[in-house]
């Protein structure tokens, strides 16, 4: 029976039953759904399914090939791990939105046409915002509204692009596209918003840290990775993306260094990691594409692990601010150890997952003689070590004791983090067992060469040495409670100020117009009263004789006009 349903429908429809279930039944059901959905995906095999025709457009609801299958695997694993993590304290609302959200992500990467993609694109936005709102604070409510505006806006831009693209090409098939036309440019922009392109990125660093402790885990897995998939599907080898990707790897590292909220640090870290993927798609060779996809896969796991360990901190201490944390390894040693695994994976230490995927993108850059790009990516790799490799575990768990005393994370959270940590080490140590064979192209890359291992260790250990030196000499930036201005200032402050200013001008204008209208109307009424009122000239009572005189004068005038207008000849009798 499962085989006849599109895989995406399993989780989305199954989510409808969740509110009816409680306790163990709900746990069993929500964990069964990703498993059943994955089974449906694997049962289908490769090919195109669910072709329907609407208004002369051919829609393909399900397309499974190498690229969409690996993302399908990824999203199911992420949903499963995230749902285990959410067992403690997670509400039914979070379960429902997480399942619909995961289903939408699966549907989006399997969409064979742009219209189906658009539908799932918007569903991603609508389902995920509840993971932010479920936190129940004023801040999360406002952040959720901003998130929703940007996400739905991305869908509107995408739709405009699809319409323009369909008008020029007559096709809505979702395949490789060339930039330059209005339609494909708009589609790229729509995808770019969800991929957190520079200046379009603040929805991510704004909303993710305000989500619930498990909500951020789901958020980090789906939206941006669907966007990376869409770029890989549509814009492979688009040169612009190389440079967009490099900028994405670079600027967030500086913000991450000075950010106080650990989950916002992870938000900036996400943009940095997506930068590597976007750059890989831009390079577009087989190795670069494999690298981008493999890194997306690994990123969901290690970033999920880091979001889970900071989520566990939030669950136990109520905060994720560096300035309030420290020394938590004493209370939460297992969480701390798992966090270190995530940190090692994102920093790309050998035998951890980042090592086998990020390096493919970098090797591809060097292979294409993009030496400067390669130097930037190497620089960004040292930046990753700072904010994700050191800052998250050190300031969260090992730094100066904050005095907070709490307990180890609940068992369900430890299980979820343990699974993610296992997969990080598994992919990093044995990439040829699962990861490499499932990539879209055949892998010829060998990560464990002595050159790669040694050079990576040199880079990382000397960066750690720099940290130790800066820390011991008190040159590390202090952890300060703060807000750092970013591109969102333009709409959160400048735009808002502009709106208020415009509102002020409009209000004054309205008052002025209203006041003037009252004056004019008053004078009209006044003069009407003066001439036509009871005492006015026209309002007086006249004697009958006066009227007779007026009538006689009018008749005389009429007679004169008549004579004046009639030609003389016609007045004379005919001869």
């Amino acid at each position, binding site marked *: 029976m499962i085989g006849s349903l599109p895989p995406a429908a399993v989780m989305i429809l199954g989510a409808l039953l969740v509110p009816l279930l409680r306790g163990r039944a709900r746990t069993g059901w929500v964990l069964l759904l990703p498993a059943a959905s994955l089974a449906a995906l694997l049962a289908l095999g490769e090919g195109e399914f669910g072709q329907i025709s609407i208004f002369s457009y051919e829609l393909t609801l399900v397309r499974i090939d190498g690229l969409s299958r690996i993302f399908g695997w990824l999203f199911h694993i992420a949903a499963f791990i995230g749902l285990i993590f959410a067992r403690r304290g997670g509400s039914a609302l979070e379960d429902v939105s997480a399942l619909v959200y995961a289903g939408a992500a699966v549907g989006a990467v399997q969409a064979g046409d742009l219209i189906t993609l658009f539908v799932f694109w918007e569903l991603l936005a609508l389902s995920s915002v509840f993971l932010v709102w479920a936190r129940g604070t004023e801040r999360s409510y406002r952040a959720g509204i901003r998130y929703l505006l940007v996400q739905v806006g991305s869908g509107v831009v995408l739709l405009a692009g699809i319409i323009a693209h369909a008008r020029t090409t007559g096709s809505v098939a979702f395949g490789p596209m060339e930039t330059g036309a209005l339609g494909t440019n708009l589609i790229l922009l729509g995808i770019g918003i969800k991929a957190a392109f520079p200046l379009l990125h603040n929805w991510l660093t704004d909303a993710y840290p305000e989500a619930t402790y498990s909500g951020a885990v789901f958020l980090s897995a789906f939206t941006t990775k669907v966007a990376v998939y869409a770029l890989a599907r549509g814009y492979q080898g688009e040169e612009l993306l190389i440079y967009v990707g490099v900028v994405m790897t670079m600027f967030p590292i500086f913000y991450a260094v000075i950010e106080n909220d650990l989950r916002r640090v992870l938000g900036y870290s996400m943009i940095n990691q997506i930068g590597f993927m976007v750059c890989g798609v831009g390079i577009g060779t087989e190795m670069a594409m494999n690298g981008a996809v493999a890194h997306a896969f690994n990123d969901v796991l290690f970033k999920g692990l880091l979001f889970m360990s900071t989520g566990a901190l939030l669950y136990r201490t109520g905060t994720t601010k560096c300035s309030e944390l420290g020394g938590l390894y004493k209370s939460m040693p297992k969480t701390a150890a798992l966090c270190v695994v995530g940190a090692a994976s994102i920093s790309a230490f050998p035998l951890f997952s980042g090592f086998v995927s990020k390096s493919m993108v970098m090797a591809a850059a060097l292979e294409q003689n993009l030496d400067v790009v390669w130097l930037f990516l190497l620089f960004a790799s040292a930046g990753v070590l700072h904010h994700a490799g050191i800052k998250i575990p050190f300031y969260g768990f090992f730094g100066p004791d904050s005095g907070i005393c709490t307990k180890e994370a609940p068992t369900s959270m430890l299980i979820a983090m343990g699974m993610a940590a296992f997969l990080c080490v598994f992919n990093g140590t044995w990439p040829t067992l699962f990861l490499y064979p499932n990539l879209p192209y055949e892998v010829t890359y060998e990560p464990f060469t002595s050159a790669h291992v040694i050079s990576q260790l040199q880079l990382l250990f000397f960066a750690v040495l720099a940290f130790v030196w800066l820390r011991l000499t008190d040159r590390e930036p202090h952890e300060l409670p703060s*807000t750092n*201005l970013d591109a969102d200032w333009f709409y959160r402050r400048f735009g808002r100020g502009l709106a208020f200013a415009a509102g002020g001008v409009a209000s004054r204008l309205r008052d002025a117009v209203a006041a003037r209208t009252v004056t004019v109307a008053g004078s009209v009424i006044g003069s009407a009263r003066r001439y036509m009122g009871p005492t006015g000239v026209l309002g007086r009572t006249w004697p009958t004789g006066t009227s007779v005189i007026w009538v006689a004068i009018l008749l005389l005038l009429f007679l004169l006009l008549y004579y004046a207008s009639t030609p003389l000849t016609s007045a004379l009798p005919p001869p």
Partner: protein
Amino acid sequence: MAADTHDTGGKVNDRGRHYFDDPKRWKRLIAILIVVCGVLFALDFVNFLQQRMGWHELRHPERDWEGLPPFYAVYGFLAYTVIVYTAKALRKGVMRDEDYYDR
């Protein structure tokens, strides 16, 4: 703004000694790090010698400049330091109060 609810897991009064309470443990960790860095640093010169002599190379460089010893070590150290100093300079321009957007 409503405070977040969180679950501290009940009453905890564990204030015993822990691993990193002892500064010696940190010092030992740093000592290990310095030894590892020293070995990695030396490896690059061994490798350079091997390249020059035409022996088997530990690390075959893709580019000449990348093969120079200790390219990665210096790059890693410098990149980290530059990032920290740039970020501190950035802070002067962009840092505001925590409730900047809530006012």
